[in-house]
């Protein structure tokens, strides 16, 4: 507990990764976790398409199929794309605003470990009596009544609860970082679009995730303590679950897509060598989409029977979202217009994103018409729609971001030839898989069925759809190979391989642990480009070279998460074991770690100017 620990802690290997509070390392951890779950969710998707390749196939049993669709949706949304989004936010946002660190490095690490261990808890259900099989939306009473659902649903409830806590505190961390820690001159209206979209996404997380927390608490109390929230026999109301789930669930889709919008804005602008067209309208559209995202949840419930007035209002509110989204589409097109365009892999994904996402947005407007929705509801048309926005929108955006920022994160460029193979196989495979599903849905094929009958004109569409999966799998494998190739490559990427515009490209790749040796002075939108145009070599520093204060690494975030992880099993098995002792012990352990964190203040350590110069010369 000494007041001065000015030397840097010397940690390496696994211990370093378990205790790190460096946002760049946490970003990499998020990418590893997200990549792992992406593979799991992808294998689940392949098994789903294998079962549906021809009528009355028997590759997987009906019960297993239900587990697969539940886990595919849950894994991809909560455990694959959310961590990758957080990975990029961690790696890039502090650099883009000229900050040395995030506001709460310790909380940041805690957020990662909660998300990772929550996801792990959920996935252990495969080995412990079967995964959840009630759909990723877990509608009551299917999910709330033990007669209809297995222990797997308890894994769903506890796993998502723990992962959701991690996401919530991660969101708060980024809000405070962006509000409080911008470099001098980095006004809100000079922030790069990726930072803006991360900011709005974090605000959505803050106000949407607590609703999920409460919904999961109700479900847990119904299942474990015999409460009656969703038990109609005792006066409970199942529509409450639908409302709560979608009050969280609809903002969640904007939590996912907004960062992709931000990435596309950065990539399109950099590779067109032009300032982003309509910057302020882009900012306005991002905020408006975030706001409207909270006003439309009942469009998932048109067929629930809320009545024509409610359906009309929610339908119109939903269509309104097409306006700011349209503003964005046109701004990207006009950024490309007349630009000096380079079709790097990152830009290919960005350019591929625009028409693909527009198709997904268009089917979204079709679904927003309540009478039409009565026809589309729970059909493959819906499946096609949300895969067009989530895969064709978000995943394309994430790939664009990964190719774009990979050199900044790892110091090496991903191979462009492999990247182009990745793009084309994935892009063609994606459209082959999901385009026919629109028509399957319009022809009446319901979603979530494990097979279909021959002679109903569904064979061709399903066959093409299943073949398309090969393209996406191939693309993902090529991407994996590309990562290995990049890691083995000896060629350093350099500070600014893309001749880019924003602050993160002004510092070495990968960024040193203190990010900026001297806090930069920001003098315009596209801070680095402003300096380039003024004929300067780099950013003008806003302060003299001085000693830099850094937070100490800590093992407590991992331990806190471990406590809740154990408590999760304690609650899941409380009924079988007949005791809550494990659950109580796990929570008590987490509280004890919190107490330790409060009692022992972290005074951090300092990096002195001579060390900075040494490292600076090396880079």
């Amino acid at each position, binding site marked *: 507990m000494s007041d001065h620990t000015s030397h840097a802690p010397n940690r390496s290997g696994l211990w370093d990764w378990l205790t790190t509070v460096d946002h760049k390392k946490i970003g990499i951890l998020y990418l590893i976790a997200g990549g792992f779950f992406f593979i799991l969710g992808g294998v689940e998707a392949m098994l789903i398409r294998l079962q549906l390749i021809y009528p009355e196939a028997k590759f997987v049993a009906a019960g297993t199929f239900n587990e697969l669709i539940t886990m595919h949706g849950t894994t991809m949304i909560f455990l694959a794309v959310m961590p990758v989004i957080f990975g990029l936010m961690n790696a890039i946002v502090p650099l883009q605003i000229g900050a040395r660190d995030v506001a709460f490095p310790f909380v940041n690490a805690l957020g990662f470990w909660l998300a990772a261990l929550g996801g792990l808890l959920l996935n252990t259900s495969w080995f412990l009596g079967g995964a959840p099989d009630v759909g990723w939306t877990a509608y009551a009473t299917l999910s709330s009544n033990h007669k209809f659902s297995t222990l797997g649903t308890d894994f769903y409830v506890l796993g998502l609860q723990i992962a959701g806590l991690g996401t919530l505190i991660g969101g708060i961390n980024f809000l405070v970082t962006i509000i409080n820690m911008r470099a001098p001159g980095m006004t809100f209206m000079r922030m790069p679009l990726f930072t803006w979209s991360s900011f709005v996404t974090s605000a959505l997380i803050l106000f949407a995730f*607590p*609703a999920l927390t*409460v*919904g999961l608490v109700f479900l847990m109390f119904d299942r474990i303590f015999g409460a*009656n*929230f969703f038990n109609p026999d*005792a006066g409970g109301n199942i529509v409450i679950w639908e409302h709560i789930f979608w009050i969280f669930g609809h903002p969640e889709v904007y939590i996912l897509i907004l960062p992709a919008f931000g990435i596309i804005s950065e990539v399109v602008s950099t590779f067109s060598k032009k300032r982003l067209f309509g910057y302020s309208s882009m900012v306005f559209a991002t905020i408006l989409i975030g706001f409207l995202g909270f006003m439309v949840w009942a469009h998932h419930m048109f067929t629930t029977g809320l009545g024509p007035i409610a359906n009309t209002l929610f339908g119109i509110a939903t269509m309104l979202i097409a306006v700011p989204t349209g503003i964005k589409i046109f701004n990207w097109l006009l950024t490309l217009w007349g630009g000096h365009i380079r079709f790097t892999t990152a830009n290919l994904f960005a350019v591929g994103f625009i028409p693909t996402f527009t198709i997904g947005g268009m089917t979204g407007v079709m679904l927003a018409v309540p009478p039409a929705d009565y026809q589309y509801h729970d059909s493959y048309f819906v499946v096609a729609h949300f895969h067009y926005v989530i895969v064709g929108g978000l995943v394309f955006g994430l790939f664009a971001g990964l190719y774009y920022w990979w050199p900044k994160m790892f110091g090496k460029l991903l191979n462009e030839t492999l990247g182009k193979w990745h793009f084309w196989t994935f892009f063609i495979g994606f459209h082959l898989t999901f385009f026919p599903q629109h028509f399957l849905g319009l022809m009446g094929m319901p979603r979530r069925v494990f097979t279909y009958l021959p002679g109903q004109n569904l064979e061709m569409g399903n066959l093409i759809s299943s073949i398309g999966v090969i393209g996406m799998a191939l693309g993902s494998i090529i991407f994996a190979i590309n990562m290995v190739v990049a890691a083995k490559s000896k060629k350093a990427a350099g500070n600014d391989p893309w001749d880019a515009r924003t602050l993160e490209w002004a510092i070495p790749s990968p960024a040193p642990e203190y990010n900026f040796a001297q806090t930069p002075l920001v003098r315009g939108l596209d801070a680095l480009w402003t300096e380039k145009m003024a004929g300067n070599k780099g950013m003008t520093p806003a302060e003299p070279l001085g000693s830099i204060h850094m937070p100490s690494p800590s093992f407590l975030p991992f331990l806190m998460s471990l406590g809740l992880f154990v408590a999760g099993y304690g609650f899941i098995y409380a009924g079988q074991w007949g005791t809550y002792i494990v659950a109580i012990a796990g929570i008590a352990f987490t509280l004890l770690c919190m107490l330790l964190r409060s009692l022992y203040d972290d005074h951090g350590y300092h990096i002195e100017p001579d060390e900075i110069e040494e490292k600076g010369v090396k880079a």
Partner: protein
Amino acid sequence: MAADHAVNTVLPDEPEKATLEGKNKVLGFWLFLGGETVLFGTLFATFIALRDQVNGGPSAQELFDMKIVAWATFLLLTSSLTSVFATMALHKHNLKAVQGWLVITVLLGLGFLGLEIYEFYHYVHEELGMTTSAFSSSFYTLVGFHGGHVAFGICWITGLIIQSMKKGLTVVTAPKFYVAGLYWHFIDVVWVFIFTVVYLMGMIGGKAVA
């Protein structure tokens, strides 16, 4: 330049916001309370939707003993006042007063919690369990979540009082006191809504036994 150098110097006027760490903590905590508002909002909405579903069990009108609830409200609202006095003392750099007012706050909070536990105990004996009805489930969950927040706050503030005996009032400890004060206010405001929506509306509104 770092926080630890300021320990030995004179405290600034608002010590909780004197360092970047402190500013971050205060802002982050306000945002956290925004999330908590959604959390309790969802609990309230569900309670309002289910409060008449008594499933043959006791209803709010039959159960509630306003005398206990009035005392509990009195204790908690008073504790909110004493926590303000603690924050005011913080701004005057008077550690002894901060500790004193916080001890009173904790004692009042304990009194509130004792009454709530007695109240729940009493209701269980009146045949209102967690599993009785949708009303009982939503009542115990909403009021219990608030009670859990009070209990956490008591432990937290007690921890702060104890560590401040050793650490004193610095730019590191000041944000902790300040943020705990915000938290205590928040759970007090939530109680005002519980008192109105659960207890007062429960006494005058709603159907009798369904």
